[in-house]
């Protein structure tokens, strides 16, 4: 797949528009400030603080806009570089902000406006966050994000599942009367658009074919809500609607031979359309009440109903694995599915006295997924001599149901022994039941078959922890642990019987030095029996621990030094049974090891009043363990030893009181211990200009 080929003009236009927006905001504010000052209606009554902040007409403006150019030179596997980082040559808007605020809360249209943005242009990701508020009247928050997603890897799905897509998202939320103590109104809108080309594989007649994807999904979400407060009762009600559409299509551009040498089918033409329409209606009610010094109670109930309608139309021609030409193989399916979901929780904290609290939280979650489809498959073939073979038609009806309900209760008590030591203990219980059922039938020759299975599990978990301050304001220790059963016993990858604990130290020996040291360990043991005769012990055990240490040192305003190190150890050993050629099924082991080290150090210093320098080095390396070849049949060994490092340096020269010139360079070095051709080195020089408004010397 080619590297990203964006529409550079559109990108440049957007970045330019964004820069102009920042500047326009400054201009509009300045204009408003000017007019309000001259009319005398502005905030002439600026406080002493406001005057200290160079206030004009009531607004204090702080802004920094950084605009620059980054170049990329990649040596090695560009696809892997793009899959990891995806940086491009070109102009970019980076780490910019515009902030206008009044000191006296008396702005004409707003009291504060904050716009933050970064990453637009040649960067793979960009965001803009806008927050605007007129106290007492409204509060507006929005986030707009763009991700350029690239995936083209030799070690995933045989390099056949690739993507080069754009993902644009936005959230806009408005609160009316945000400070009103009785009622507030909320409304919001979100959008999500994901589109672009990709590739995948298609299994046909026991053969695999590479196919092209044209991804296209879009979602929007509308929501309205009201917050009510009266007599200390607080209620929030939200009503929302979400619409989801997928118009992804799949196709081949050229005839494709199957990838398996035997059998060897082929496709001459292939196309599939699979539109999906989905809607979610949801309602959420929350309530809260604090009974002074007695109890704090909150509750929540959510009901959502999600429905999807879909059709799938697939047509292909080619050759089946027996060598018979296929004149048409058409697969038509349509149906719908729904998921009504009820979700309720209530939590209460009782204050026994000033130092002891007891809390209980109860929740339930219940949903039912029901979906059905009809399938019509018509296959028309000839034999190799072009004599028509009988047309085969299958016409099936399918229904599937999943019922799920879970109760969970957590009770805990916490005690402040004194201001240097506090602890808590707790217990969590969950009960879960899952029912799976289905119906399959042949419409042409009815022969219904049903199935039903259910599973119930309960978990018991004990919680505990403490916070201690052995040396006041110098040393804080947090410890917490859980022992029992996890919430995910249905999959062997997840927790079952487990114990985990973590301890964190925050040490501040001096005002300008802080040190953090932490250790976290988790031991999952998932015993079981094989479904064989005779049954054997069949376990899944995962042990992991993480050690971390970091420091931050800022001895004076012109120098700081930070660093840290993390070591993650993970050992997963799982008994598995699978077949291999000529030997049938056998019991073996799936082993996965992670030995990841991560270290970083960065420094910032100002050797001259006009010059600042930042330098950093980050490295992540996994040493792996063992070698695949050392293991017998039926053993699968997984580890991924690699090194990923990146030094960078950046300098800033203060050209004018409000203008800085930046120059920097970053280097990425990625290398895998078992070289399959994915290693790369990338050089990223960079230069930019930062323009400030309202900067103090």
């Amino acid at each position, binding site marked *: 797949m080619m590297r990203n080929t964006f529409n550079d003009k559109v990108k440049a236009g957007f970045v330019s528009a964004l820069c102009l927006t920042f500047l326009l905001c400054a201009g509009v504010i300045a204009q408003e400030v000017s007019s309000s000052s001259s009319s005398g209606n502005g905030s002439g009554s600026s406080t002493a603080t406001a005057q200290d902040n160079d206030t004009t007409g009531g607004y204090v403006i702080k802004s920094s806009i950084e605009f620059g150019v980054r170049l990329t030179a990649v040596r090695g596997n560009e696809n892997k570089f793009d899959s990891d980082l995806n940086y491009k040559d070109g102009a970019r808007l980076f780490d910019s902000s515009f902030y206008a605020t009044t000191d006296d809360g008396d702005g004409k249209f707003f009291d504060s406006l904050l716009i933050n943005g970064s990453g637009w242009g040649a960067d793979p990701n960009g965001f803009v966050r806008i927050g605007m508020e007129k106290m007492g009247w409204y509060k507006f928050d929005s986030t707009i994000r763009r991700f350029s997603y690239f995936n083209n890897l030799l070690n995933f799905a045989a390099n056949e599942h690739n993507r080069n897509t754009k993902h644009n998202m936005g959230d806009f939320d408005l609160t009316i009367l945000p400070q009103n103590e009785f009622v507030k109104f909320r409304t919001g809108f979100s959008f999500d658009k994901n589109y672009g080309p990709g590739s995948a594989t298609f299994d046909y007649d026991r053969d695999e074919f590479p196919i092209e994807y044209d991804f296209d999904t879009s979602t929007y979400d509308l929501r309205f809500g009201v917050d009510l407060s009266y007599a200390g009762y607080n209620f929030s009600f939200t009503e929302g609607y979400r619409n989801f559409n997928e118009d992804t299509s799949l196709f081949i551009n050229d005839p494709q031979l199957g990838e398996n040498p035997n059998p060897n089918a082929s496709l001459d033409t292939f196309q599939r359309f699979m539109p999906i329409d989905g809607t979610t209606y949801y309602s959420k009610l929350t309530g809260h009440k604090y009974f002074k010094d007695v109890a704090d109670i909150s509750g929540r109930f959510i009901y959502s109903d999600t429905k999807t309608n879909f059709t799938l139309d697939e047509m292909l021609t080619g050759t089946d694995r027996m060598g018979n030409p296929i004149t048409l193989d058409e697969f038509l399916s349509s149906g719908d599915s729904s998921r009504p979901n009820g979700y309720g929780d209530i939590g209460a904290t009782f204050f026994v006295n000033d130092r002891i609290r007891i809390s209980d939280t109860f929740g339930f979650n219940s949903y039912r997924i029901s979906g059905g489809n009809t399938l019509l498959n018509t296959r028309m073939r000839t034999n190799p001599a072009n004599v028509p073979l009988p047309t085969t038609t299958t016409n099936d009806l399918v229904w599937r149901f999943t019922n799920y309900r879970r109760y969970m209760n957590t009770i805990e008590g916490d005690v402040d022994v004194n201001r240097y030591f506090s602890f808590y203990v707790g217990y969590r219980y969950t009960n879960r039941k899952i029912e799976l059922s289905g119906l399959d039938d042949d419409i042409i020759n009815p022969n219904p078959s049903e199935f039903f299975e259910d599973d119930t599990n309960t978990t018991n978990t004990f919680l505990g922890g403490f916070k201690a301050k052995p040396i006041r304001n110098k040393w804080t220790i947090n410890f917490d642990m859980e022992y029992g059963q996890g919430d995910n016993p249905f999959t062997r*990858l997840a927790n079952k019987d487990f114990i985990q604990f973590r301890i964190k130290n925050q040490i501040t020996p001096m005002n300008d030095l802080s040190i953090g040291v932490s250790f976290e360990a988790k031991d999952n043991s998932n015993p079981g029996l094989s479904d064989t005769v005779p049954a054997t012990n069949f376990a899944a055990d995962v042990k992991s621990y993480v050690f971390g240490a970091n420091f931050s040192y800022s001895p004076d305003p012109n120098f700081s030094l930070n660093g840290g190190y993390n070591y993650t150890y993970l050992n997963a050993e799982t008994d598995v049974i699978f077949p291999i050629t000529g030997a049938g099924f056998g019991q073996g082991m799936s082993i996965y090891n992670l030995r990841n080290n991560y270290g970083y150090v960065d420094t910032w210093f100002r050797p001259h009043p006009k010059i600042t320098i930042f330098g950093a080095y980050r490295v992540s390396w996994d040493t792996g363990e063992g070698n695949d070849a050392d293991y017998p049949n039926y053993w699968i060994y997984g580890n991924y030893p690699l090194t990923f490092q990146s030094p960078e340096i950046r300098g800033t020269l203060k050209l004018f009181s409000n203008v800085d010139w930046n120059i920097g360079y970053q280097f990425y070095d990625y290398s895998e211990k078992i070289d399959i051709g994915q290693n790369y080195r990338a050089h990223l020089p960079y230069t930019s200009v930062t323009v400030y408004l309202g900067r103090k010397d």
Partner: protein
Amino acid sequence: MISRKLIKVALLGVWAVFMAGWLVYGIQSRTVATSAAEPSAPKGTEVAYNQDDYVGSDTCATCHEDQFKAFSKTKHSKLTQVKDWKDKAKGCESCHGPGRAHVEEADPTKIISFKDKTAKQVSESCLTCHAGKEDHNNFRRSEHLRNNVGCTDCHSPHGSPNHPTKVGSITYPAIDSEDNPGPATVKMLKVSEPQLCMSCHQQTKAQFSQPFHHKVLEGQMKCSDCHNAHGGFELKNARLSVGADAVCVKCHTDKQGPFVYEHLPITTEGCATCHNTHGSTNPKMLKRNQVRQLCLECHTAIFDSPAPGVPSFHRQDNASYQNCTNCHVRIHGSNTHPAFFR
């Protein structure tokens, strides 16, 4: 055997009775804790306040100039300009209590100070006004407060500190600063996200630095996009997406379903069953570097498991059967194929 319907009705009944009792009790008790009409002091420090005991923030500024300067830029300070709060918010004295005795007697013990209070005590003062907001409703039961991490461990009620502007990485946005204000300024945080969260959860920095990761360090995402630091009903302070869906499908919309053929671990256990949600060295942020390991560790012949084992022709010495998702392409759920082929 009690029917499911009966349990549901009983639960709803208990819930309705509880809510009614709660309402009646609350109205009768006339406890108005969240009203700011009478700013309440932290627990254990309540005294009967008189309006004449308040001296105003300007008086505080004469001695506490730095705090006042920072405070006067905050929404806390500007609350006095809002009509609804004009006679209720008392500036500095909203939290520190009336200052007349402190001013007249120059006695530091005659004013509420938070220096020697525990995180929970300090937080009770904040919650006097800030409880009742949906995001804050469960803070008293949150993992943070349970571990004695209170409001002022993250927030600075006198206003976000003006960190000096420091030139930083060319790929990661720098923290909010005096000349480059950001959300931390508005939300009165001590430091902007994610640095604030990572100061305690330091292992996440390593996770977000792996080759495959959510773009948190790059500033595109915030910790608070997925977690509610104020606590909630979900474990690990996770948020929900629209309705009751997992937070992941807020962005990964095509995984939302429902599908005719659901992949059970996704609906019952969640995305984190197979994915390391912060970051991973493995493609697609998977927990194993070989997809087949993820699949086989469940789809094996284990007693009493709903996951079927692999069929006999899935010979694992054949490369085409080692890449499970090459055929099972719709592994997150399918509407048309029970084995997730299309």
